[in-house]
């Protein structure tokens, strides 16, 4: 009985496959301008005319009142850590252990996710001050900010 069961389990197969589907996502006018400025090492958010909230990363419409954001405002490059984590495993796409933070750039009212480097994990804390380090060769994506490091 046991050997029959073992034989039948050995007959089970797992069909190995994968899907690789290239996409071309339109970034929209706001993100396009954001990335053009980022290539010049400039960080911009958009301001909601009703709530006066500065959104970073910039959005075309306010995330709360849906008002069209009309003003562009420079923010950062310094920021405050509002939360953090040290991923001890090789994360997706970057394929290395990565320290993530939620960061509020100076002048912005929303936080956003990025990675930290050049930081002693035991020194990490909420309220920590950090500054952006820009990529040497910008590619038009969020890693044009290479990382943030302690001020």
């Amino acid at each position: 009985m046991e050997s029959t069961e073992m034989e039948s389990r050995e007959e089970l197969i797992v069909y190995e496959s994968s899907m690789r589907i290239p996409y071309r996502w339109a970034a929209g006018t706001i993100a396009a301008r954001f990335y053009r400025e980022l290539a010049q090492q400039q960080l911009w958010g958009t301001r909601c005319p009703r709530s006066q909230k500065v959104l970073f990363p910039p959005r075309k419409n306010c995330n709360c009142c849906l008002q069209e954001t009309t003003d562009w405002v420079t923010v950062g490059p310094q920021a405050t850590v509002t939360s953090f984590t040290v991923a001890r495993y090789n994360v997706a796409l970057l394929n290395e252990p990565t320290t993530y933070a939620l960061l509020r750039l100076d002048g912005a009212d929303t936080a956003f996710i990025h990675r930290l480097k050049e930081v002693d994990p035991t020194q990490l804390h909420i309220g920590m001050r950090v500054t952006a380090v820009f990529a040497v060769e910008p590619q038009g994506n969020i890693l044009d900010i290479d990382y943030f490091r302690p001020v």
Partner: protein
Amino acid sequence: MDRVAIVGVAQTKFEAQKLDQNYAEMVFEVVQQLFAQTGAQYAEIDNIVTASSDFWDGRTISSMAVQDAVGAWLKSETKVSSDGTLAVLYALMRILAGSFKTALVVAHCKSSEGDQKLIGNAVFDPIYQRQLGIDLVTSSALQAQAYLHAYGLTDKDLAEVVVKNLGNAQLNPHAQRAHHLSIDTALQAALVADPLREFDIAPPADGACALLLAHESVAARYTDKPVWLQGVGHCQDQYYLGDRDLTTAVALEKAAAAAYKMAGITDPRQQLDVVELYEAYSYQELMWTEILGLAPRGKGVDLIRQGVSTLSGTLPVNPSGGVLGAHAMFVAGLVRVAEATLQLRGEAGRHQVPHARRALAHGMVGPAAQTHCVWILGRD
């Protein structure tokens, strides 16, 4: 409003990898079990709502592959690509609309078949976030850290949830992960994404769950122990984590308020007998119990330390072991509803809570729990 009851529940055993079943076969197993239990016939069930994910199944329109298994051939099948608790809400609406007297609700997931890191990463928007490699674990770790910091809590508080829930899971034959741990041994587990250790993170599971809902006019046909849907609330917060206050969950607060109002609950700590929560991470049980009004903010852990939410307490939380015992995406919330139903029917076996008459079941979905759904279920 017309009343609708849960008249049957079925679930598979949850396992890290089910090699002997493809996902349609897994779904067929629970549907057969449910029909055998309720005496329902395929021919009379014409309203079927499924919950599953295209990304987890690795195909478009994931419900297409289970349409035969749920008996939807030449019938109306519709899918929720979200947690199973929301599929119950959709099924309830289709009954209350007057179009159907019954609804079969089925959720399935085989976590073992896809790359969890890549699928979790695909949750994030490709323009501003995805390239950073962030996933469901790391985004929840950011929430955990913010919550612990806000209330001066530590990983020792998280370990209380781990010890309780994995201990309860030992009594649940459907659970995938169950351990008898001490706080010290729980804290020796490897850090995965600070402050979360291996035990703080629910294990990806393969499994399925099914419920049968019936309008009050036909419920007695299927069971003599109907469990009534007394209240429901559903709400979602901002998509971007940085747009939310991660130290709380406003969406859960609003969902709970709506469900409590509908069910006439003014003092949940006194009026509820058992609670099943979707805690994909240990910290979430602490946050959710506080936001549900069962403990003051920052004091959810006292429910465990004081023995209130333990299996023998006055208000057991996750007597099944919760999602820390098994995490099949989109299925886990439906399992919370199923487990609450078993408790109210007195059929929960070794993790039965005595004399349970009213239960809360909770589902959530999205990065750091963007969306919440709260159900109040009762014997009456």
